[in-house]
């Protein structure tokens, strides 16, 4: 079994949002809909001794994915490589998966009346390219690959980091695969408890908020 996912080095990420814009361009995502977004965490601390980092959030490729469990039609599924994907043909728009996802990374495509999310740019990786967010990343902070392959970019990034610097979003039993590298030198890791889907957000300036 393989575990394809993204790994993000938050020591390097500097919040330029290129990954978001690259994702939207690559996947033709409508205004107000998001597969990937960058959340600012902080600043925390006492002025001027502050900490802050940016947390890009997209599908975490959970090992025990709640979205797949709750989907009544099999539209949310795991492919032969183990990637969690959506078959929009089968989606009936019940949005159970959006409610089940703890990270708010599923996006309602209003035009197609279907749920979407990060596909790890399968159309690019199948042709030997990197996902658009990884290719554009100005801080060289994003990595794509198979966690089970020690030679993959993601495995190497994690191996190079101190174990205490490797984090994941809060695991409520769903076992997210995506890892975030953040060392104490830059900032203390904060559990971001609830991330609501941006496409349902009442406040379009969500990106600018402290988490």
């Amino acid at each position, binding site marked *: 079994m393989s575990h394809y996912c993204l790994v993000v080095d938050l020591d390097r990420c500097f919040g*330029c949002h*290129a990954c978001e814009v690259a994702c939207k*361009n690559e996947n033709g995502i409508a*205004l107000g809909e998001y597969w990937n977004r960058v959340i600012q965490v902080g600043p925390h601390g006492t002025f*001027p001794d502050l900490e802050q980092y940016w947390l890009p959030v997209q599908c975490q490729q959970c090992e025990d994915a709640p979205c797949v469990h709750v989907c009544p039609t099999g539209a949310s599924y795991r492919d032969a490589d183990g990637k969690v994907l959506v078959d929009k043909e089968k989606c009936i728009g019940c949005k159970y998966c959006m409610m089940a996802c703890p990270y708010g990374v599923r996006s309602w495509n209003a035009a197609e009346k279907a749920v979407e999310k990060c596909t790890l740019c399968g159309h690019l990786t199948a042709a030997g390219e990197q996902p658009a967010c990884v290719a554009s990343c100005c801080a060289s902070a994003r990595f794509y690959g198979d966690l089970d392959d020690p030679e993959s970019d993601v495995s190497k990034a994690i191996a190079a980091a101190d174990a205490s610097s490797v984090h994941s979003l809060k695991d409520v039993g769903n076992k997210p695969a995506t890892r975030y590298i953040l060392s104490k030198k830059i900032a203390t890791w904060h559990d971001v408890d609830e991330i609501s889907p941006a496409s349902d957000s009442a406040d379009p*300036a969500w990106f600018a908020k402290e988490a």
Partner: protein
Amino acid sequence: MSLTMSRRSFMKAAAVTGAVGALGLGSAHNLTQSDKAWADDDVQEVRTSCRACIANCGVIATVRNGRVIKLKGDPIDPMSKGRICPKGLSGVQALYHPNRNKYPMKRVGEKPGNKWERISWDEAAKTVAQALIDMRDKTGKHGLLTSTGGGGNPQFFSPPRFRNFWGAGNVFEPGCAQCYLPRNYTMPLVNGLGDTSIADSGCSELYKPARYGGITEAYVIWGTGPAWHSPSTSGRCVAELRANGCKTVVVDPRFNADASKADVWLPIKPGTDMAMMLGWMHYIIENKLYEKIPGYEDFCEQWTNLPFLVDPRDNVSLPPVAEDITKDGQLLRASEVFSDVTAENEGYVYFDTEKGEVTKAFALGPDNDGTYHPQLFGTVDVTLKDGTTITCKTAFQAYKDRCEAFDLDTVAKITGCQKEKIIEAIEIYCSSPHGGISLGVATDMYPGSAQAAIGAAALDCMTAHLWHPGCPANKTGGQGSSGLSSAESTIFPSGFIGETAYKFMDDEAVLERLGYAEHKGLGGWMHSHIPTILSAILTGEPYQPKVWIERSGNKMAALGNSSSWVDAFPKFDLIVHGYMYPTSFTTEAADIVFPVCEWLENAFAQNRLNVNLMRKPVTNLFEAADEIMMWGKIAEAMSDPSSDLYDANMEACMDSEKIGSPMVPAYWKTINEYWDWVAQQGGDPSVTTMKQAMDVFPEEWATDDEYWGGTVYDGYCKVNAGGGAGGKKGDLVAAAADDGKVTYTGFSTCASDIKDDPKKCGPYADTMLYIGRHGKEKFEMPAALVDYNPMPYYFEPEDQTDFGDEYPLRLTEGRIPYYHHGTLRNNPYLRELYPAPELWISPENAEKYGIKDGDWVNVKSPRTDGKDVFCDITTGVDKKTTLAKSKNAADGPSEFAPGEELTANGQSIVKDGIYGVARVTKGIAEGSVYMERFWNPEFLEDGSDGRKSWTTENMNVLTKNTGYFNPEFGTYTLRGIHVKIEKAQKPEGVWYDPTDFEPWMPEPTDFTGGAFYQS
């Protein structure tokens, strides 16, 4: 490289295009008929160079059936390494924006207003030509005004080029004296190498790969935000440095991305940078850190002008804002001391501690190495050749005296930073010679611009952060061996690099440039002083600008105190705007509009370290054209001797033989000819046409081994260290006496009257002082009324002094990753990300004003409230020199004694202040607030009030073009202004929700070649 699609790559591209189709890019919204018969799914990748900002990253554009469908970074670019930022990625949406200016247009109806009629290029050019000829015949050529700046891929030198060909008139851009010129001009005269702006693609040393010994260990990021101004180039580079263990210090009011990763963040109060610099100098001198830089302990003594003696008799005139500073003036000239020294072998002097006597400074070389023992501090009694004795300080003593009051307790109080943090920062800075200060645009944006540029460069001199591995000031790069060369296709104006055979302009026309004689640094880019221009427009004195050709980003969003310009527009006979889409300036001011190109349509040869990129015309739409055609067609309309519109200069500028300089090409008649010329500038002699260039570029002109391996370090103490950084003499510096002495390369920073160049770097900026008194033209200019002080000084921002009680918050600006200057506010994906300007405010201040995070706030300044109105500064100036007759009001209004208010009417338009969204954050100090420039193109949509596009969220109606301008550049105050704020409601009509921006989603069209294309 064009790519014939293999099946494999075709499938890849098909997958891409399938996905992008959802954007509507595949739809058939053809505004322009195209007779091009495309083969099904003709997919190519065109390797080009971005111009969404000034970084120029390598980009690969995927083009399907003639339409650009995708952009990605080009890995060949050694600076961006295949990365691409939000601005670059938005190029497709910018290219196919539904509101592109598609054809030349003329105004029909009222001004301001947004009603236009399509006209031909020929009619547009002739209309401008007619206005220029009428002006010439009635009031003279000096009525021409040209301008650029504000973003939007302008040809930087096009406006001065046209003006110089025309023969008189003025040029400005809102940046210039407020952006980059002060550092670009001043720092090389101090450090002998170059400016340290990482945003302007300098600091190549920082990009050196580790395998070639890339070793920056201590990097000070001062008033610049690499992660956000150019994420893919400088942001990427600095992220790499940090990952490799480089320690960083960030001096910035904002806790920005680089601050959040830094070892020390100094949250400096806007406008106090010079105090901070003087504090660093105070600490460095007090603790003798200048002689503790590991490996370079004697650098200060041997290689700077700090031991040179200062002439105490020089009665320097001091700036009105700092009349209590030390009065140290020019360095003592050797001809005053030694009878055998004349103007022919003029030099500086120092006191030699071994010889025990005053000695003429000399350049070090193998023959005299070890014989130079200068006294660094204290005073020396010098007997002049006329027998009198004077007591002279050393330049370093003058510095010590200048910064005496700036102990770190005092500096902490002024700057709002903690003393311990300041010490930590200085200790990091001085811990290694491999590093230095990158000074950003922040200090250029207030009247301490020259002072901060001297300060930062002088600090690097005092601490030996020059010309060693890892120093930002270095110029890097060895030569290639393949016959190729580093290249750029900048189009220079006549008189900028060498003379032309045809004399386009006389000295009088140079001298009468508005505000130039007082602010001679403006000559560096051949520009004029913006407030002096504005006053001339409004008063007609010393002469009346009448025809304005403007080509670039929204001037209403970019000019300081921009509402003060409203009353200026009716004073012109004709105003022209060349841009890619309408802006507030178009609707407020323009009579004629020229459609110019987006960067994906333009051509430019762009060097990136050891690689030459080529910006290529990936497609060309409508009747748009590169701006060079706008200037060229206006000139061409006046080039026919048999026409009523004939002008001899304009005929000459169409004729390369008449111009007679290979550096100054004539205008081109078709775009194809121009593209071929650009292709020929690409550094590859085998390329003569753009058709070839499409395949050849990007191209490595030197290998990594040649480029990085060929960089000369510590080259100042090498004999004949040709090819290394700083080895090339500036045009200021005369050749050293030809007495057969072999010297080290050294640094060349001395004033142009010094003939025996001692080859020191010049932290004591004697050269700036000299320029203020004599200029840097081919002719002697009259001295400025205020001298260009050789050392930095600090003064409190005028808004604090004049209005601090009522407007308690000090405002700064700063870059964000989504926009460059005034651009891209109409870009749907970017406006979705950043729909309105944020106002950063500390939790303490937010509570005080009852503001919560996400609240809309109203912001006002003394400019919006009619308390600080732009005044007459020109009716009392000399007509020939535009210099004030004196600093006294009795001699008539000048910048030193402004007369009556001129723009109360215009400024009343913004009496309600502007709006932004509060961001309550600890990431800014109490008392400081931050807001970036903004404007609202949605108000230019049909049925909207266009004026609101620049009056609603535009912080540049708060900024200050009044009061004090610094002597060197005439810089006015864009940062460090004071404001007051209160909670407000979202202003009516602004677009804010993501789907609001739907009307701006791209409407792709086919290639037309644009105007002047020969198929």
